[in-house]
């Protein structure tokens, strides 16, 4: 199999709150975001611990599931009441005079800078907690300082064929973004156990894509850690090449990267994505006359590696397949359904070619000589017509 090297630049996805999702084949990533205002002024955030979590599947079909759940956390911090804060009250004569002068001047047009300069630092702390640490914190053991309980409901679709698994909390980000405000980000992943990987690859109607090596380039945002790469396919269609008995499948492929940004003081769980068109050729023993009813995609091999800077080397290989008919129990009976419910092989045998059979070269002369004993081309022609008319 040849390796295809490709370089693709991703675009940062727009931030979304209170949830942001990335769907892939057989996996979904969910970023939950909350701003939490606490009563005391925060002097130091100390972390978060899980209190309880629950989930259920609200709806399920063969290739999609709606997961729903809730997570309860406790946020710990050191705080101080407003009365206890050391304040610096001073005369404001110069500033009030300046204010009086500027207020009455015509409005100055301000050119807002596109990027925050490097000299403008954020001094509020930002804590990242891994899944392991999250689970190790004992919620029953009260920590010194203040605590606030937060309950976060969530819901997401997971597309693909596979065995249901539990959602996993991958990372937690807790940042102070004001004197009384926390920004909480929670990253979860739901990944189905895919069956196709363990089964022997079917012969008919499936094909492996060539092994692909793709260099994903993230936008300017600096990535501290890559947490996942998800691939999702949609708008599949196919076209046949009757002469060569090959089905060409086309699909839109969305590649998304979930990563932790180095920039503190704001949201750090970010996603970037790109949409491309991909194509694969599936050879068939014979090309049916109907459009495929269903398409399959399975990961055969997939891994990624974060390189220096914002580059990610992604190596993948997928199995593509088609079904021309849906399984028995999924069919909907229509007015002519009885005629259409046939096994594929039987249907092919009763089909007659539109193009009439051509006589073999010299056949009519062979009959006259009596050497071959075969029917004449003329009578063969007439028998073909008869078959069609009876159809």
């Amino acid at each position, binding site marked *: 199999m040849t390796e295809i090297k490709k370089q693709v630049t991703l675009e940062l996805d727009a931030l979304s709150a209170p949830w942001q999702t990335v769907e892939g084949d057989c996996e979904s990533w969910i970023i939950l975001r909350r701003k939490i205002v606490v009563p005391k002024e925060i002097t130091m955030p100390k972390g978060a611990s899980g209190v309880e979590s629950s989930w259920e599947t609200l709806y399920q079909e063969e290739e999609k599931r709606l997961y729903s759940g809730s997570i309860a956390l406790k946020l710990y911090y050191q705080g101080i009441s407003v009365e206890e804060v050391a304040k610096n*009250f001073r005369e*404001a004569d110069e500033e009030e005079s300046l204010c009086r002068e500027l207020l009455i001047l015509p409005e100055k047009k301000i050119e807002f800078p596109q990027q925050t300069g490097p000299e403008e630092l954020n001094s509020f702390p930002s804590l990242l907690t891994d899944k392991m640490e999250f689970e190790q914190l004992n919620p029953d053991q009260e920590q010194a300082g203040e605590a606030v309980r937060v309950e976060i409901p969530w819901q997401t679709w997971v597309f693909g064929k596979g065995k249901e698994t539990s959602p996993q909390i991958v990372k937690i980000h807790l940042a102070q973004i004001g*004197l009384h405000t926390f920004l909480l980000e929670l990253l979860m992943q739901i990944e189905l156990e895919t069956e196709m990987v363990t089964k022997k690859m079917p012969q008919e109607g499936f094909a492996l894509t060539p092994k692909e090596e793709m260099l994903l380039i993230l936008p300017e945002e600096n990535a501290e850690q890559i947490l996942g790469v998800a691939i999702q396919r949609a708008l599949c269609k196919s076209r046949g090449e009757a002469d060569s008995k090959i089905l060409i499948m086309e699909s839109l492929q969305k590649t998304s990267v979930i990563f932790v940004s180095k920039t503190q003081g704001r949201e750090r769980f970010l996603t970037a994505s790109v949409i491309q068109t991909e194509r694969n050729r599936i050879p068939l023993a014979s090309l049916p006359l109907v459009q495929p009813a269903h398409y399959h995609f399975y990961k055969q091999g997939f891994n990624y590696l974060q390189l220096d800077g914002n580059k990610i080397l992604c190596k993948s290989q997928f199995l593509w397949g088609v079904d021309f008919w849906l399984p028995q129990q999924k069919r909907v009976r229509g007015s002519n359904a009885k005629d259409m419910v046939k096994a594929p092989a039987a249907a092919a045998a009763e089909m007659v070619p539109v193009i009439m059979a051509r006589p073999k070269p010299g056949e009519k002369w062979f009959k006259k000589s009596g050497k071959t004993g075969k029917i004449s081309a003329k009578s063969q022609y007439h028998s073909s017509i008869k078959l069609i008319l009876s159809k």
Partner: protein
Amino acid sequence: MLGMVFGVHGSRSKPGRLEVEGLPPQILTEYNLNPHSWEKNSSTWRITSDQGGVIIGLYDGDSGRLDTVLRWQESSASQGSAAVLRPLKTRTGKHTAVLEKSVYYALAKPDGEVFKPGHKNNLLVCAQELGLVHHMTRDFLAEEPFFFDWPKLIQERLTDLLTYSHWLKKKRAQTDFEHLYLESLDFFYNQGQEAIQHMVLATVGGEMDHRQALLINTFLKQTLMPADEKVYFLDLTRWTKGPRMMDLALFLNSYMPLHKWDLALLLDIMQQYQRNEGLNRREKHLLVALLRFPSRFWLYARQYFCGDRPPHELAEKLKNYRYECCERDKCLDLFEEQLWKE
């Protein structure tokens, strides 16, 4: 003190006359001054001379307006009523000396002290003198038309605050100042809305029933001088004509923060100010509007987005301003209760 330059010994351009840095010797000649020592602060010189203490100022503006206020100062000072300085006259009998298009003026400086805003008595005396100046200038330039567009100004400045917040949300706040700004916006915007309501009530009825007066427009520490049991206003060159509450609000906003918006002090100051003339209903609304409006929140935001001041300095100032406004809010709530009872 920043900006002050001192001089005692120096070269002498004329026998017996000390040179004053930055001040052309012709000006000293015009006012017939022989300085012994001097100190310079921005565009004024404080000179000790044979004639006593003198303040010489370099004026940047319409010399006609300067002349107007100096003539008023002369008449007030000669009566000994208002706490304003007596202007000196040049050799030719004028109040101002012009040299190469630069306009200078001179005032007789009393032998006073440094204004200490931490001393409550200084504030009370200052408020009393301010009330007197306003009372005396009720008909100051009565024929001059008056235009008051503060309600529109305040509304525009509140809109600025929203514009800043929209931009910050779009680009995602990152620095300390940006986070503090967004966190505080609701609180300050509500204060601004309340100020607008009072401003509207202050102008209801069409005709502005606000006593017009000569507005001093500056209460910087260096422009105030306690002397002779008064507090003198050293700089009237920025004068305008307008509602007297504009001056009172500026004075209160300048020095009440130092006293943590002490309600008792505020009531005392109001009492001193109203010794000659009390406030009417519209003036009370205007005063509350100007005290409520979060002018420094707007100032810090403007300085941040224009890059006028370092971000970390503005973040610290904004933090302190929040604390101050919590105290101010409580004080003004109680102050209003008292105000409407009067």
